[in-house]
């Protein structure tokens, strides 16, 4: 792909973005961030040269967009391969079904779903407070700065949520915040922010996280309670009949429990097995929900590749002006 060499930071970033087309959106965000750091530092280091003069040499120092893009792609593949815990894939259906207990992702996903309630409450309170205070302050002089502060906090929190999701579910999320062009004027930046669909999807995500978090929490707590008590029930029943706990079986399971379940050699293993199946299904469910949620979060929190083209174009234009 031979095209004209980039003449400005903005052009370089656009070409890099095109070269990375189809790559993970989080990877693109990181690559653009790194490139922008380097290019702006390089331009700042040569105050006597124009931006286009500096960019002329960039292909031999930083690397042409296609070289840089392939470096990111290669490194990402290697890191993924190195970080992935080697797993023995069970062949049989039964092995694959119960193999979920050996998958650390299943446990972390389960933990993430539990954590979804407290974090959901925090996000919800933050967003509702921020939005309503912004609306209230909008008639005062502190209204606009307050809204900006609120949005800045939202960006940081969304990055943190991304890191949490990646740690828990293993789905790649951005490791760098989105860099807003510094050269934009104060009002232009606010306009930019209001026009950026990501601003609104981020707010919507934070609001939705509470009901979603409640749902996840209920699924996990109810699932764990039912399946674990089903597993534990027969064991306690047998031990109780054997005279443990200082009680007779009749005391342990007086009239609350159907007698036949615990007193037949058939009922006890069936109950335990049902609990085990339920527990295993819950682990699968947790892992699946974790992955789905990560995809949902990515679509809401990470900018789509095209949407950030215009604002960096404007920042580049403003910088050369």
């Amino acid at each position, binding site marked *: 792909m031979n095209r004209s060499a980039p003449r400005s930071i903005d052009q370089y970033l656009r070409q890099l973005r095109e070269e990375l087309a189809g790559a993970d959106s989080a990877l693109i965000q990181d690559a653009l961030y790194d490139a922008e*750091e380097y290019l*702006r*530092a390089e331009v700042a280091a040569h105050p006597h040269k124009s931006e286009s003069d500096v960019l002329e040499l960039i292909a*031999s*120092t930083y*690397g042409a967009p296609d070289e840089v893009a392939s470096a990111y792609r290669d*490194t990402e593949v290697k890191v993924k391969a190195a*970080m992935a815990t080697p797993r023995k894939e069970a062949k049989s259906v039964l092995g694959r079904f119960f193999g979920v207990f050996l998958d650390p992702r299943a446990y972390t996903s389960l933990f993430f779903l539990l954590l979804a309630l407290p974090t959901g409450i925090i996000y919800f309170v933050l967003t509702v407070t921020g939005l309503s205070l912004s609306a209230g302050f909008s008639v005062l002089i502190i209204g606009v700065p307050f809204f900006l502060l609120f949005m800045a906090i939202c960006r940081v929190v969304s990055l943190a949520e991304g890191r949490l999701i990646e740690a828990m579910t293993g789905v790649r999320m951005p490791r760098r915040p989105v*860099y807003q062009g510094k050269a934009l004027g104060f009002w232009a930046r606010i306009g930019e922010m209001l026009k950026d669909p990501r601003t609104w999807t981020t707010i919507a995500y934070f609001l939705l996280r509470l009901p979603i978090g409640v749902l996840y929490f209920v699924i996990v707590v109810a699932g764990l309670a039912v399946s674990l008590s089903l597993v534990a029930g027969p064991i306690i029943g047998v031990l109780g009949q054997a005279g443990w706990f200082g009680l007779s079986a009749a005391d342990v399971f007086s009239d609350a429990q159907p007698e036949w379940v615990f007193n037949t050699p058939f009922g006890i293993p069936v109950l335990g097995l049902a609990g085990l199946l339920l527990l295993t299904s819950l682990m699968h469910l947790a892992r699946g929900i974790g992955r789905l949620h990560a995809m949902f979060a990515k679509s809401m929190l990470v900018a789509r590749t095209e949407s950030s083209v215009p604002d960096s174009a404007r920042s580049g234009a403003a910088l050369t002006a």
Partner: protein
Amino acid sequence: MDDSNERKFQKELNGGLVGLVLLAVLAESDQDLYGYEIAKRLANANDGTSIFKEGTIYPVLRALSAGNLLTSRIVPSYSGPPRRYYRITEQGRGVLAEWKLIWQATRDFVDRFTETEDSNIGHSS
């Protein structure tokens, strides 16, 4: 594109070397460094032109950081986006020591073959 063969060879060589060089640079430095600074140190050490494309060190820095060989912190900057400053970890120093040994062994091994072309007698002693 006459040099495409050379470039490809250089690129394949660099694959593992970039990580080694980055760890070594950070281990020698008594202060935290950010990507651009590291890139310039590499270039200055080689008369202004680094044998690595400087753009390729950033993804490697991130990979080393993800592997707990480096830690990083973010500092705002006037010239562009906030900079990420890197520092080598104890684990990183351990890995660097191992990699150095591997590199020295590899270099000696390769030298044994490539240098015989120039001086066949030199290595018999």
